[in-house]
């Protein structure tokens, strides 16, 4: 069994459904009435893929403008970033770009980027089409994924896909990452413990 620990940060405007997505995945419930997150909250999420057990340290940020200058403290050293928007709200989609730009500007380690279009159940008021969002995501080297917390679609797969991308990143490349990989002694050769978090990336 290989154990991976990685940091996943959810970003995006307030009200797009970040907290709902995370709560749905971790606790399996959905509440129509939920309070706005203040600051950020931290949780662990587990994903199992093949012989990997992935522990995601999940940060749910508030997306409030007043904390804009404090946001780097949340996304620093992250391995995956999911920027969420509401498919029925163009302003929230517009914000995705500025979030991604900001993170890219301040990050020099490889990161898995996801643009997540949430609330796809709102078929009638939907404004951002799949094509438009997908095209945008591709243009910023991000994956695109759609979810609806309300009808519980795409949530499990979002976390599984992020997990899969993290594994790819660890397995395929020699590039240093922040991810902590531990291979259990009984299975791993020579009791390998890799923790690259101190290595700085120089390749840009």
């Amino acid at each position: 069994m290989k154990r991976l620990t990685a940091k996943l940060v959810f970003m995006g405007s307030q009200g797009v459904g970040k907290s709902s997505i995370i709560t749905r995945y971790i606790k399996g419930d959905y509440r129509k009435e939920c309070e706005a997150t203040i600051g950020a909250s931290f949780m662990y999420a587990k994903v199992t893929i093949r012989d990997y057990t992935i522990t995601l340290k999940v940060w749910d940020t508030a997306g409030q403008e007043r904390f804009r200058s404090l946001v780097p403290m949340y996304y620093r050293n992250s391995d995956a970033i999911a920027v969420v928007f509401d498919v029925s709200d163009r302003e929230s989609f517009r914000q995705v770009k500025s979030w991604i730009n900001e993170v890219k500007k301040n990050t020099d380690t490889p990161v898995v980027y996801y643009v997540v279009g949430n609330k796809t159940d709102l078929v009638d008021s939907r404004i951002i089409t799949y094509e438009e969002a997908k095209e945008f995501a591709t243009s910023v080297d991000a994956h695109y994924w759609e979810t609806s917390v309300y009808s519980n679609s795409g949530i499990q797969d979002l976390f599984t896909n992020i997990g899969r991308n993290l594994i790819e990143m660890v397995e395929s490349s020699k590039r240093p990452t922040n991810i902590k990989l531990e291979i259990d002694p009984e299975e791993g050769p020579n009791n390998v413990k890799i923790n690259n978090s101190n290595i700085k990336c120089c390749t840009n």
Partner: protein
Amino acid sequence: MISSEEYSENMEEAQETDISILVSDVNNIAIEESEVNKSISENKPLPSSSEQSNSYENLFDQLKGHNKHIFVLSTAGKPIYTRFGNENQLASLFGLMLALMSVTQDSNDTLQSICCGRTRIVFVNKDPIILVGVSQRSEPYDQIKKQLIYVYNNIISTLTLTQLKKIFLNRTNFDLRRLMSGSERLIDKLITFTENDPGFLLDSISCLQMPSNSRDKITQTILTECSKIKNLVFGLLIAQKHIISIVRMKKYSLQVSDIHLILNLINSTESFKTAESWTPICLPTFDSSGYMHAHISYLAEDCQACLVLLTIDHDLFFTLSEAKRKITEKMRRNDCLQAINDAIIRQPLSLARANILGLRHLLYKIKNRSQHWCPPFTLPYNTDTLQQNLMSVYCSLISQMNFPGRNLKVIYQQLTSETIVAWATDEVELYMCFEPMVSKECATNAVTKLTQWMKKEEDSLFIFNIPMF
């Protein structure tokens, strides 16, 4: 808490006579403003009601249904907050408030309060924002003003004073709601707190009642972990509205009004129960210029006490998270979690145990610790309304007792439904509520008896040990 502005009854009277002039202007201004604002409002689709005037009526009917309002606007007149209704639809009302303030400003004066009939309107100008309270609950001026200051502090706690000033420096027309989003519910809850909680009236906190040796053990456990951490400034353990324990860094102390903001944040946020939180918070009395960072988490699923660790270092999350884990673990091992659970479910100490004839209820405050005890309400105060009335009685009693300039030691008043007594010594303040016909001697004896009884009980009711690291 109340700012040092000079304010005497005479001044207030003078103001109130002036007001009749202002009030007669009110209608004119209101009409003009609503004309002006029609064009603004028309840009936004208004709810169902087709006719403009009709919707205004609805709006004001809706506001009239409540006897206490708080409004916040910018000095440029932009809406920031209203307790009831939608601030977008209140443009004319905000315009009127601004007009009233500037009329007095033009004559180099400051508008503090307006009384018309049972309605009292209080203005607080904290440039770049203005706070207005409208009350029909016969609350004293200083009480409403203090509530407005609390609301102001809450805004500072989300934004910092530095950020607030900076925003309006270049953009006087800025819409502050953009930056406040998500914190409206904290203001709503804080206002309710200021209306119901004796701690607000007394500038004090309430402690969770527990044996002092249990409390010491808990405090020691927190202290041991916290003292290892650089840049950790305060640690608080909270059970609902009560404080279990406080530790602090040498040279720094936590003011009551800041603790009230922290308590309000905790008690208004359900999600703290399910996840660890890492939240920037400004404590206005401690330092209004910058954010501190709060690690907020409940000890365990089976122990609903909330631990708040405050630091100035934004990189400390995982250190604090680890400290919290150790604190919980240790507390579990030395039975502290059990002690907390016992204390939370225990029947609170009843005043009946003091066995004092005619004494129905009281507020007991230890002055130099800023802590109070408010026993559970019993008959005849068994409904919300009756408790609310009693709180109003306390409110005016406390306000009389602490009126600036006077130095009262005792107040004895026979009201229609109760006799009330305020009693102050160097150490304590007592606000007591007796049955209607209780004599002065009887009340005096009660104070003596009560003081003796409290000596035995106070170890478990108050925190006498707030250690430093």
